[in-house]
């Protein structure tokens, strides 16, 4: 009994969020003022889970018959998911009301998707991975189409759902083959026997199916087709969460599944796969993003490119790369959330004011927003001293250490390409003369708060990356 109570303490963040989901439902049903209470309640739950994850990092272990891990790097992921979701909720408050997509379910779904992410990051068993993944994905399918009157949202939702289910199919088949050949779904056991198992062609096929499914979830080329339409059609704040939390969760699984953290595991047999994914995602994402004039689409393509940079780390598959990917994910989460947050503030009704032209002269009318946007763009393009630079730096280090300098050079080339479209936003905001018509940005203090928090984190992790990277590496064995 004592043990079970201890277990509950250990996975308290998940319990908190889970309980939050149920309580939210209750609030939504019973309270008249649920539209005022729910968002703050969600933020409270998320921040509590976030704080608990952060302060119990040193308490590591597994619960429930080795199904779920907690503490350490899992804790860092949980911290990331909950904080990202909290920022998303802050950005959403005004946004979803303003653009007619206010439903109480919105916050419940966000909480619920976070629970899924946390299960993925902590999963020690393939079933756990699957349950977490579906929990997150189904929430996202609904969130993408939450504004049901908008045709683009319907399209996004349907597209995401169909293609997402397809990817899930791959994952399930993969898991089946892995289970069939290894006779277990326990990830640790699989990793221990990995070297032996790779002689079995069915196991390798299973792994490949599994990886393909997750390549879809991280939005890597050539499984990226859904990304631009879904990011563009969904509510902007939702796109922000999908591209950051969702991606981070999928990467957390890839990191575990690789077994890269464990010394003595077989060499990275899937290196060619990841190297190919990295190469094509970076180049394709960066090149196609150049021709986008819609900011959400541009960020969608750039998100494909960023998946590519992180996949460099997967290809390298050493200790540095795990730390690098995690740092990159954290940096990417906050800079992307910030950028989407600003877009959400400027966006007009019916998908208007999303084009680059709408940003002309933003620096004159809203200097703070413009400055923050510029900061996020510089960080996304990987310019020091912002967090985005260090993400790339760590990933490149891991590649060079793994004797894959060519991949790092490709990463560099793709960064140079990406600079073009990131700084183009700045060109529009700062260098073009303002149009006479004023840009109505409604008073949105909570959104601004979310964006400022993101910016502070981007600067903070940029100036003092050591603290974070030390924290991450201290849990890598």
């Amino acid at each position, binding site marked *: 009994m004592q043990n079970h109570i201890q277990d509950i303490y250990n996975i308290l963040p998940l319990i908190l969020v889970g309980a939050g989901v149920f309580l939210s439902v209750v609030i939504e049903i019973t309270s008249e003022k649920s539209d005022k209470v729910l968002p703050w309640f969600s933020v409270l739950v998320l921040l509590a889970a976030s704080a608990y994850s952060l302060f119990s990092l040193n308490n590591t272990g597994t619960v429930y018959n080795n199904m779920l891990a907690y503490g350490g790097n899992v804790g860092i992921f949980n911290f990331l998911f909950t904080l990202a979701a909290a920022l998303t909720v802050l950005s959403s408050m005004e946004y979803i009301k303003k653009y007619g997509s206010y439903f109480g379910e919105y916050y419940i779904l966000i909480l619920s998707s976070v629970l899924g992410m946390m299960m993925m990051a902590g999963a020690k068993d393939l079933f756990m991975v699957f349950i977490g993944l579906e929990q997150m994905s189904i929430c996202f399918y609904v969130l993408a189409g939450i504004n049901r009157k908008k045709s683009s949202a319907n399209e996004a939702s349907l597209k995401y759902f169909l293609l997402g289910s397809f990817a899930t199919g791959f994952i399930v088949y993969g898991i089946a083959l892995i289970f069939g050949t290894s006779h277990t779904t326990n990830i640790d056991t699989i990793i221990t026997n990995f070297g032996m198992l790779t002689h079995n062609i069915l196991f390798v096929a299973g792994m490949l199916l599994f990886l393909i499914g997750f390549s879809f979830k991280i939005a890597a080329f050539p499984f990226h087709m859904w990304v631009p339409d879904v990011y563009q059609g969904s509510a902007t704040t939702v796109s922000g969460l999908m591209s950051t939390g969702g991606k981070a969760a999928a990467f957390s699984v890839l990191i575990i599944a690789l077994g890269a953290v464990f010394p003595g595991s077989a060499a990275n047999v899937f290196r060619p796969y990841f190297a190919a994914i990295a190469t094509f995602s970076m180049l394709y994402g960066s090149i196609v993003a150049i021709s986008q004039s819609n900011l959400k689409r541009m960020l969608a393509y750039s998100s494909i490119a960023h998946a590519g940079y992180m996949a460099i780390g997967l290809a390298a598959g050493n200790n540095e790369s795990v730390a690098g990917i995690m740092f990159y994910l954290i940096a990417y989460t906050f800079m992307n959330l910030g950028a989407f947050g600003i877009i959400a503030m400027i966006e007009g009704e019916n998908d208007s004011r999303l084009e680059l032209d709408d940003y002309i002269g933003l620096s004159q009318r809203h200097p703070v927003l413009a400055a923050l946007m510029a900061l996020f763009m510089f960080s996304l393009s990987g310019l020091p001293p912002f967090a985005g*630079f260090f993400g790339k730096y760590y990933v*490149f*280090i891991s590649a*060079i250490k793994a004797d894959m300098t060519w991949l790092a050079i490709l990463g560099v080339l793709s960064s140079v390409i990406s600079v073009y479209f990131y700084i*183009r936003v700045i060109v529009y905001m*700062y260098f073009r003369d303002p149009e006479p018509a004023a840009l109505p940005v409604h008073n949105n203090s909570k959104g601004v708060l979310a964006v400022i928090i993101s910016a502070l984190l981007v600067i903070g992790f940029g100036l003092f990356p050591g603290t974070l990277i*030390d924290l991450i590496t201290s849990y890598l064995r």
Partner: protein
Amino acid sequence: MENSQLLTYLLFLPLAGSLLLLFIDKNREQLIRWTGLAVSLAAFILSLAVFMQFDGSKAGFQFIHNIVWISNLNVSYHIGVDGISILMVMLTTFLTPITLFSSWGSIKKKVKEFTFFMLLLEVGMLGVFVSLDLFLFYIFWEAMLIPMYFIIGIWGGEKRIYASVKFFIYTMFGSLLMLIAIIWLGIYAAKFTGSFTTNLLELYKIGPAVPQEVQQWMFLAFLLSFAIKVPLFPFHTWLPDAHVQAPTSGSVILAGVLLKMGTYGILRFCLPLFPQSAMKFAPFVSVLAVIGIIYGALVAMVQKDMKKLVAYSSVSHLGFVVLGIFALTTEAIQGSVIQMVNHGLSTGALFLLVGMIYDRTHTREIAKYGGIAKIVPLYSVALMIASLSSMGLPGLNGFVGEFLILLGSFKSPVLNSWGFTIFAASGVIFAAVYLLWMYQRVVFGEVKHENLLALKDLTKKEILVLVPIFIFIIWIGIYPGTFLKLSEKSTNTIIQQVSVPSFDIRPVAGK
């Protein structure tokens, strides 16, 4: 005040100033201007304090300050100056207040942002010159792009967007390859010292031990990034665009300091880190330098726009500096270092003068001028001094540098050919041609346009801007010893590092 802290204060003073500006209301332009000027002057005074305490008779770095920054990667906040970097630091702190002051008349919109970016730029430039950690250096090197990008993009001319984007992407391309080389070097170092390091002083010992077939790629990665910044022919195409479109103060800083970051980088990193490759590629790079000298001069000659002319003359002048560096003799490198300072002063002055007359007439076309000698005598004299200094008239600063470079390249055992010197020397003649010809067309002859008659001569403020520069132009011309003495020891150290690379390191057991 402790020695080692002084440099840190200098580095962060402009940063503090720029942050201070954020709290000033943007409409109080006068206050903003004065704050910017005061901060940059304070930085200059602080750098004078460094200069006074600097011991030129010692080789190696002084004012070293080293604290751990990112322990996991073994990256330190590690700064210090030697005889070469102190000259660059002085040049930076000297030119920044001058440009800020000179911008008072020409920058009328967004004064707050302008001052903010100029101060940030100063932090970046100083950081580049004092960093003794490759990683730290890279941060400053890249971060500096941001303010310059804004300065060209917001306050520039008509094609400013094209110019700023080109400048940004061009320079970033070069530097990112350098980043890969930095990482590679750090990882290679781990084989010897047991840990990843970007400490420059340690890497000085490790770089020469890198196998030649790998070393040459790293050398080229570093060189490309510096060559773009210099700009060395054929990587120069961003420069005329950036120069012409940038506002006067941007051009002054760009030519005065930013380009020196490239040549400084070659001296500080390319040569000592990869000595064998430097020797191997020296003739090749020198050929490019000589092509740059002649090409830049010839193109400058046919320019119709004064600013473009000065911009192309930079390509030519910087060619001299690169030639001097790769000649690898004491005279030549000494000449290069002093020429880096000279170019900052002369070209800075020329850009200022072009800017001053542009503010009055709103044209830079040479053909629109003529016969202004009598109308604006003071201006004409100032333009003459700057032109003569730029073309290297004996008694003025340019002569000293060019002479030393030509002498050094003539004697150079590495280049081992008179050809370089002969062709380079023709650049001196061309410089005289295009500068004098421009001067003649602008200042002498008949007054071409009536509106020139109303031209006003230099104001007191403008004189105040130019006089300090002229003092140094003449000082270096007459008594270059003050400055040459400073850099002599450091120059010899670099030559020694290249010609006698030290291999006295052994792999750590078990690594």
